[in-house]
């Protein structure tokens, strides 16, 4: 007699090729908000089981990113796909897979920089601290500052490139960038301005340029 077996999470190799976004949108029958989120709940189950010490390690990331892209396009206003890419799939210990997830986050940011900058900021931090790829982190940080016009963009996100440049030991580039930010009047908070002016003087002294004592 067959006894019902408990359902198991689908294995990594069971992830099918992604459909075209138009097909997925047709399947939603107009209920894009519900369908996109339900699709993400289904997707996150692949290669995620209690006996899997490292979830998602065996997933075909080319297919995964295809699915994330298709689901994102069904409901562009949902952040589920981006959160999953930035905070789950990008934290795969395999650097190649992690980069694919970060590239998806970057691609998504370029479509809507004002709303999706938090995910790219997280991607920049992952690139810096986990992948130790400072040029990649710098590229992401520079895109946030250059492209996002969100009035709620916090100062740390806008200044991220400066600190990445410092870590790259590119003190001159950091100094020039910070000087330009101060000169352009982008820093409105007095306390922040004081902190950054102090930081700029510190960069100048470290890069061997004397403090001229001018108010920037």
């Amino acid at each position: 007699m067959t006894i019902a077996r408990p359902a198991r999470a689908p294995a990594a190799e069971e992830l099918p090729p992604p459909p075209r976004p138009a097909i997925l949108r047709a399947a939603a029958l107009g209920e894009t908000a519900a369908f996109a989120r339900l699709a993400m709940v289904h997707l996150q189950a692949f290669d995620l089981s209690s006996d899997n010490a490292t979830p998602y390690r065996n997933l075909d990331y080319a297919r995964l990113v295809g699915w994330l892209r298709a689901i994102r396009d069904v409901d562009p206003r949902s952040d589920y796909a981006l959160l999953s890419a930035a905070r789950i799939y990008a934290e795969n210990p395999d650097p190649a897979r992690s980069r694919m997830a970060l590239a998806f986050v970057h691609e998504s940011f370029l479509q809507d920089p004002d709303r999706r900058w938090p995910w790219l900021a997280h991607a920049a931090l992952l690139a810096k601290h986990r992948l130790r790829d400072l040029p990649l982190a710098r590229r992401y940080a520079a895109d946030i500052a250059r492209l996002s016009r969100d009035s709620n963009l916090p100062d740390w996100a806008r200044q991220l490139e400066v600190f990445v440049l410092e870590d790259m030991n590119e003190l001159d580039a950091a100094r020039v960038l910070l000087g330009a930010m101060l000169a352009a009047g982008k820093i409105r908070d007095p306390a922040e301005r004081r902190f950054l002016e102090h930081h700029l003087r510190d960069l100048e002294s470290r890069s061997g340029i004397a403090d001229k004592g001018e108010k920037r």
Partner: protein
Amino acid sequence: MHPKAHLPGPMRMLAQATLLEARRGGLPLLAAACIAGTIGLAAFVSQVAITESVPLQASLAAALLRVGAAFLVAAHVVTSVAREAADKGFELALSLPLSRTQFYLGRLLGHAVAGTAIATAFALPLLAWAPPDAVAAWWLSLAFETLLVASLSLFLVFTLAHVVPALAATAGFYVLARGIASIQAIASGPLADDGFASRAAQWAVDGVALLLPRLDVATRSDWLVYGAPGATELGRVLASLALYAALASAAGLVDFHRRNL
């Protein structure tokens, strides 16, 4: 002058009889079961979501309740008419001083009120997840959508005379109306062929789309997650649903008048 005198007596009585039949046939119980099942499923699925759990609950519940409302209304209309036909109820009703138009519209009115009651019951739980203005827009749209489904089901069951074909035709029309915009987009998309067969398929799809209401822009769960639609957009949706309901009713009346009962 009493307000109720505006509605002809026979039509009002038929509408009331239809509502009584819906109540005694277990429709309120089915609607309650649908609500309970939907809320339970939405709550369960939201437990495994890692983010946006409230929008997921709201949108999933709304999507399921919408389909549930359409199914309950269509099933009730079709089975009610089929049962009355089997019991020779039409012949009895039409032997009374009652025109075919009054009979048909009275039945439709009763089913429309039942649909509105279902829409109201289904909209109330959504207030837990969405602002009142968004739920109000969703409720209005669902009420008109159930009117459309009731009109269509009534027309199809009188025309096709059997339960399964009428239900299948209603379901097919409903699914096609919800998906036709996406089908058009696929047919005319960048990956579509340039050959004659592909262009002919595009024309056929566009032709079919002209005959169908745009149900993909009505009663959207997006409204509950991202905010209510503007008055103009909502007005267009409601007008479109009302127009197609009127067309289906007119078609049903024409067919009912020509039947030899």
